[in-house]
């Protein structure tokens, strides 16, 4: 039983770390604001969920667990809204997303 819980929590922690690192790489490597915001918001939500559920499994059921669950709930409520506010203000100040148009297509469109 102990081994199963340990294995589960380590799996959760590893997955959370992977998502965090991939989010960080995404912030640096994506070429456009909206994709970057997308990568950052993955770190905010899913990565936090996995890391904290790994910690919850480690700590067993006590007051710390309840606090951590509260942290997850508050983060899931606030950080998507924060990303939304950021992206919304970027869009309203006139930053256009690239969407699915590649560079060739857009250059063709401007030529024609």
């Amino acid at each position, binding site marked *: 039983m102990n081994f199963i819980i340990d294995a589960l929590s380590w799996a959760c922690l590893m997955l959370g770390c992977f998502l965090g690192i991939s989010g960080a790489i995404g912030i640096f490597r994506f070429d456009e604001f909206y994709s970057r915001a997308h990568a950052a918001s993955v770190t905010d939500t899913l990565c936090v969920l996995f890391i904290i559920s790994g910690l919850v499994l480690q700590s067993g059921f006590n007051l710390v667990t309840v606090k951590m669950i509260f942290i997850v709930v508050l983060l899931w*409520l*606030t950080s998507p*809204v924060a990303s*939304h*506010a950021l992206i*919304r*203000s970027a869009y*309203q100040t006139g930053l256009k997303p690239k969407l699915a148009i590649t560079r060739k297509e857009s250059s063709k469109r401007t030529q024609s």
Partner: protein
Amino acid sequence: MSAINLLIDIVLLTMLVFTTIAIVRSRSLFAIVMLSGIYSLLSANIFVVLDAVDVAFTEAAVGAGISTVLMLATIGITGYEQKKRRSISRITPLIVVFITGAVLVYGTLDMPAFTNPSNPVHEHVAPRFIEQSPTEVGIPNMVTSVLASYRGYDTMGEVIVVFAALIGVLSLLGIREKKTDPVYTEPPPRPILQVMAKFMIPFIILFALYVQFHGDFGPGGGFQAGVIFSVAIILYTLTFSQQDAMDLVPPWVLKRLAALGVLIYGGTGVVSLLKGGNFLDYNVLAHDPIHGQHYGILIIEFGVGLTVACVMILIFFAFISRGDKNP
């Protein structure tokens, strides 16, 4: 345990240094404000590692929270980019910086070694506070007992400084109420943000009250609680509109409440004078000295919280009512 602490220390301090370099090199004021918020958050983490939870709390609430918002409101008035400097020689500042740095390093040579338990700091007042505080003041959080009881006079000075800052801002800027402004337009509706803010504000206020009245037992107190309370109102202002917030908490009420907080603090001192003790000596407030200390600390913390909250909201109003270049 100490190895992991060392690792965390090294990582946090490295990030602090990089943030500082980024602040110095950046030209965009917006980025600089955001980076200084990050700087405060990192310092708060360092304080947590050092077990100074009260200080970390204050740093996170004041440094990372409210001062970032106030700075953003300020650059909303001034503009986002740093102005080009006139070309001046680079040699003179370099020499000045080197001389100052050398003097500071020379000064640290005379200081006692860091973390040495026989330092003068740890020998005179601190042991007395640690030994006597449970019997003299009797509240579990020793930081609060030092701040509110032993050093009550200093804390009163701090509250008056905050109040004086408010007077300065109001006499320089003033608050423009926009009721008759023809340029005033209805801001665009922001449904998601508004629903979320409505959901969060009760929790923020509840947390502020908890920090306010739980300051005797855990980390927290009037300063932190006041800042957190004002953050709730500032969130309301940002997601709804300035007019809504000014209808909710009118500036003329806030001005009187801010003064009332200082009055409560000073009045507690005067009451203890009248009851035959020293100024701000809470022992005489009740029959039992320990109960008197409890009452005194609760009352003055309430005064501190009231003043800080009202001053923060008023300064924010004063800044944001100057110009709405950015929403």
